[in-house]
């Protein structure tokens, strides 16, 4: 173990001296609390790629693990100890990490929350509009169902901030279609295997339904229909590469992908760099609006075809960049390398 530490210490020492040579590069910290999820992995890769592409970041300190808000408090405080210039964080929830964010901004560190909002006013927020995400997809789905029938409502993780925001959007659309009922409401936990098993169970139970709304666990739902040879119903999912491919290739599948770019992480790094450079945005909050690509209209089909990319992991969102924010290339995000790697 001593040797391990000695080796790591030596490497750390080397990177410190190398950093001193390259002068004024920024040191950026990253905190994320879901590991092993395609969307979050793309987010982290987008952060690394943008830091590299900007040419202004000397090093990244990444705290990336499965934990709760209390664990994220620890991670953010560790990043403060590491002396970073900015912290880009995907918050575990809106209120729970405010204390550490305040400590960071008090210490002069720029904090950007991506994907989900935080209520601490000193933080900048660059987030996908989660309420709009759910509303857009649910409204399209209910229209496809002819405004009546039962829908299977497959949510994300119980208690997660984004899931609650999406629930607001879904309920808003539901209120606009009084003849639509919810046949089943389940939490997939944003886990592929769990969502698939739930759909297999629902299909086996014989409960009648005319549509499926999923919170981003989508390609395995289509798989469940195909494997159990059940007649397809309209399905709404996210812009994950696997599902986008299915929308063009599975015969008889009617569906739509709603964009929820994981590359928002890269945009968050870019925003942090801009603020460090002295260019503050007009508002503390920047929202990325979702887009809907359906496989019914010509316009939607064209967008699906343009977005499909066989090189991507099927669990990654296909919207790998955000125009106006991210400057990395497709190869850079797939390589998933940050500065100094």
């Amino acid at each position, binding site marked *: *173990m001593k040797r*391990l*530490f000695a080796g*790591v*210490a030596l*490497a*750390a*020492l080397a*990177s410190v001296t190398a950093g001193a040579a390259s002068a004024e590069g920024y040191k950026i910290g990253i905190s994320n609390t879901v*590991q092993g999820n395609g969307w979050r992995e793309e987010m982290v890769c987008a952060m690394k790629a943008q830091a590299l592409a900007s040419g202004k970041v000397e*090093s*990244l*300190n*990444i*705290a*990336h*693990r*499965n*934990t*709760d*808000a*209390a*664990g994220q*408090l*620890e*991670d953010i*405080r*560790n*990043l*403060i*100890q*590491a*002396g970073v210039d900015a912290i880009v964080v995907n918050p*575990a*929830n*809106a*209120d*729970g*990490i*405010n*204390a550490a964010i305040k400590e960071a901004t008090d210490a002069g560190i720029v904090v950007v929350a991506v994907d989900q909002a935080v209520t601490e006013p000193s933080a900048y927020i660059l987030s996908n509009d989660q309420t709009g995400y759910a509303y857009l997809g649910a409204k399209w789905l209910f229209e496809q169902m002819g405004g009546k029938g039962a829908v299977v409502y497959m949510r994300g*993780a*119980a*208690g*997660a*901030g984004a*899931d*609650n925001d999406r629930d607001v959007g879904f309920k808003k659309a539901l209120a606009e279609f009084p003849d639509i009922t919810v046949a089943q409401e389940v939490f997939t936990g944003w886990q592929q295997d769990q969502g698939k098993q739930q759909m297999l169970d629902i299909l086996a139970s014989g409960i009648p339904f005319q549509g499926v709304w999923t919170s981003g666990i989508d390609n395995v739902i289509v798989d469940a229909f195909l494997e159990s040879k059940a007649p397809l119903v309209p399905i709404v999912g996210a812009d994950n590469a696997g599902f986008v491919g299915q929308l063009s290739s599975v015969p008889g599948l009617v569906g739509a992908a709603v964009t929820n770019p994981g590359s928002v992480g890269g945009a968050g790094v870019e925003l942090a760099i801009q603020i460090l450079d002295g260019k503050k945005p007009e508002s503390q909050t920047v929202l990325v609006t979702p887009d809907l690509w359906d496989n019914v209209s010509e316009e939607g089909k064209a967008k699906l075809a343009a977005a499909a990319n066989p090189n991507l992991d099927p669990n990654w969102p296909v919207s790998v960049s955000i125009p106006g924010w991210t400057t990395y290339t497709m190869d850079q995000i797939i390589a998933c390398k940050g500065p100094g790697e």
Partner: protein
Amino acid sequence: MSRALRRNGWVLGLVVLFLALLAFTKAIQPGFGASGLESLARAALPFAFATAAMAVVVIAGGIDLSVASMMAVASVTAAVLMQGHGAGAPTLPIVLAVLGLGVAMGALNGLLVVLTRVPDIVVTLAMMYVWEGAALLILNAPGGAADPALRAIVLGPVTLPFVPAAWTAWLPKAVVVLAVAVAVVWVPLKRSRLGLSIYAIGSDATAAFRSGVAIGPVKVAAYAVAGLFAAMGGLSVTMGTGIGEPIPGPYLLAAVAAVVLGGVALTGGQGGLLGPIVAVFILRLVRLDLTLMSVDPNVTAIVEGTIMAVVVMAGGLIALRGRRA
């Protein structure tokens, strides 16, 4: 005598390891000081209580997989009760009620283990889901509030009247809170007849029974104490975040790890609470060092696990040699 020495030797070894890690941290991050210690202590707090809870049950020869879920129930209950009161919340009664709830949850776990005679691991696995669901029923999303006065209890370093602040700057309030809370429960318990019985049933249940120990009630008591510590852990989560968290955090396996690293035998009857709590601080400090060195996050988990395995194996080897000599 030699057994006591060995047990204390293990804790002493852990303290030395902790100090060595502190020195290492200072070496790689010269700015590391009082504020670093303070944030380390606050991060360790929920882990330390979870570990104390687990350690008591393991010493009694059981295992409690529902520790993190009970923490979630305590956390959301406290946050829901304190919501809407602002600074004028009846905080003390709420804290006492939550601690009582913890005791009740733990006692129920213990009762089920004793009455059904189903193995501890199975009962508490089932109860893990029960408490998890209960927490979500109380609060379906992170929310609620915490009394700022309660949160301030663990914030910053200790300040004493007539003592210069510089003298106490290195002692975080969180450490004092942890030490007092654990000592108030554990020190009298360990010296009592009940404490002895907890060690006895963990060491050899049959022998304990033949010596007149009422195994069932002692086991229920051990689980109740674990529930009490879990409630403290849940309260510390709410104190840290200012909200209630219905989804259990990563405390269960971290607690098992710290218990093993802290010198408590998983077979029961051996060890104490000091070792596991020092182990919690070691594991948190390793996490800090890995962040400071910006080690690849996927490698981080491997390093944490490796350190644990190496320390436990090395400790076992040393103990073995000690016995031969």
